């Protein structure tokens, strides 16, 4: 099955990328955009099974996300 992982900077944590994008958008003609936050989107395939959710959760904790400054969510998709 496939896992889709969404990683975002924790609330209250500075997001310099988001901020910089936000500040540059008006010059491109996009007004009124706010709260830009840049995170990661990771897709991966793993063996089907009941343990898949638990495995992805573990992967996020250990490797994919940095729990000190990032939050994560994920969904499992069976194709």
């Amino acid at each position, binding site marked *: 099955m496939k896992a889709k992982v969404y990683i975002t900077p924790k*609330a*209250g*944590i*500075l997001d310099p990328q988001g901020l910089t994008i936000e500040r540059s958008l008006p010059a491109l003609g996009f007004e009124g955009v706010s709260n830009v936050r840049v995170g990661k989107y990771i897709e991966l395939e793993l063996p089907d099974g009941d343990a898949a959710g638990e495995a992805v959760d573990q992967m996020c904790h250990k490797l994919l996300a*940095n729990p000190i400054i990032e939050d994560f969510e994920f969904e499992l998709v069976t194709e």
Partner: protein
Amino acid sequence: MSATNQKPAYELLGLKEKEYQGICDAMGREPNYTELAVFSLMWSEHCGYKHSRPLLKNLPTEGERILQGPGENAGIIDIGDNLAIAMKIESHNHPSAIEPFQGAATGIGGIVRDIFAMGARPIANLDPLHFGPLEKSRQKYLLEGVVEGIAAYGNCMGIPTVAGEIHFEDAYEGNCLINVMCVGLVEQDKILRAKAEGPGNLVLLFGSTTGRDGIGGASILASAEFDETAQEKRPTVQVGDPFTEKKLLEACLEMRDKGLLVALQDLGAAGLSSSSSEMASKGGVGIDMDISKVPLREQDMEPFEIMISESQERMLAVVTPELETEALAVCEKWDLDAVIIGKITDTKRMRVFLGDELVADMPVDALVDDAPTYIVEAVRPAHEVDDPLPEDHYRHPTDLNETLTTLLRSPNICDKRWVYEQYDHMVQTNNAIWPGAESAVLRIKGRQSGVALTTDGNGRRCYLDPRRGARAVVAEAARNLSCTGAKPLAVTNCLNFGNPEKGEIYHQFREAVEGMAEACLAFETPVTGGNVSFYNESFGQAVYPNPVVGMMGLVEDVRLVQTPGFKDEGDVVLLLGNARPAADGSEYQLRIHGEVAGRIPDVDLEMEKKLQLLVREAILEGLVKSAHDVSDGGLACCLAESAIDGGHGAVIELASSQASQGAGDQRSGLQADQRPDLLLFGEAPGLIVVTVEEKNLEHFAQLAQDLPAHVIGRVEGDRLVVQAAGVEHINIPVAQAAQAWGTALETLIGDVG
């Protein structure tokens, strides 16, 4: 939360009852909640130097080249021609242990701000680092994160990271030491200071927005008060934004050039509280601020949160009302948030308003100067002994070739390319000597002179004898500079220790500070500033006492600088110095004999000074073709490193009666009848290996006069061969040594291929 409610607020903020009483006395009343939070930080160990201040007074801080000693954001050293060097070192140990990437990155951010707060353009970063053993995966994670963090921030800023050091020892497993140093260049008539002056002048806050970053103890207080919102109010890790800092740097220097600034100060520990009160204190003035004007990143921040937030990339300036518009325009040009948040007064009080409401009113002097100081009864730890271990304590190794290879592979000795290639070490195009040598040398564009930079800190030696260790650290830093041809001028230091409330730690601290003072006096390298990091302990286990010295020197003619590598076949190898190498405290003792014990040899400061002068003079006369000091791993590793770096072998013969060959006639401390392992791998401060072309040998000997300087061999072939008293102990192809030394770190990190 309920448990914390029972303790008084000051205690939650880390203050003792007596300290709280002191605050009440200074205030003439009980402080309110915002005031208490501000006091608690200003009177913390970090800002108040409660356990270190009395001892730091022992450090020599004055000299004819010192334009600014401790007390400002950075020290400043006169290098002639209206130019000056600003430098400072700082620790980011605790933040890096929590989040290595951001911890180290914001460490760089902080120290760089200290440099441009003086009006100097940063020209170099240095990074002395100490970790636990790399065999542990957590340590690898820390190393990788820290190095990437330093790289990410320094590289983006366009400041080359040109030197530093890395040690791995068990003692740092619970607490890594992440020190960072920044060096800047400034024209003397453009130096800025943090002294707020002129009642009626305006206070400008610019740079990033303010969030809840790094609000530590105080947020516990907050949660006690606001139970329901406690979750949102937890302290957040500081994230660095090097891009904003780069703009901040350029904006500050532009304002400097336009003469817009009365005073400039960065926001570091304790944020707005410390920056504003320290500026006011330096100028003997007061300050009024309306913190409702502070641009916030998060809503609903309490006044105390705004006052103590440690959000990064912010600066505070004092400007005259006439130049306000121009200063704001520069911020606008660099796309930085900027607001006038207050004005200078003559009240000597720091008054904080939220709109019209007065939320805090504190005496500036009490905040900045009146933190109590403590002197602890020192206790000499049992492991500090008077005598070195007897030589026969050490079993004889069988194969010294193998010993050499093992030591070359030690992560404390091996090639650090893996680290410094992640740093942009060439930006600004000033590197006369690239990383990997004794010290970095940067030319100064448009001048003949150059600046040499190094950091040194050897906790293991300081653990065995903090006074001798600190003396040796200073001597080694000076020696590293001298080996390039640079004259040492000044020191900045970072004192990394455990909990100073413990007698043994206090003893280590006191001894180290005094030892450093002695050596700095001897070398005429005053201390221009520094930092103290206490409480580097976990589970009651402290790190090695680790004074780290950052030293700068001046090279008269940057074209003449020297590196450790052997240059040409036939060059004569000389050993300078008469110190007797010993195993105690050495890398040899640790790696081969698995212990750290005994007593390290003391440095002979007078002899050391003479030798260093000799090396510098000989380099500047063009007589020396390579110079390398005998340090970690002893003479054998020193020779191997010169061979590897130069790509040449050498044949070395240590005779018991050295043929003086026209060089001095004092006996060398290296006596070939000493046990060969101790002779070759033992360590002692005060030994330098140089190579000289045959035809210059006589001239060199004249310079050396009666200093111990002995011909020990020749640059020759592609093997390193070392004999002592006619017996061959080492015979190894340089390529093999290079392989061991060059691949060790990557192999340990598992980052090969």
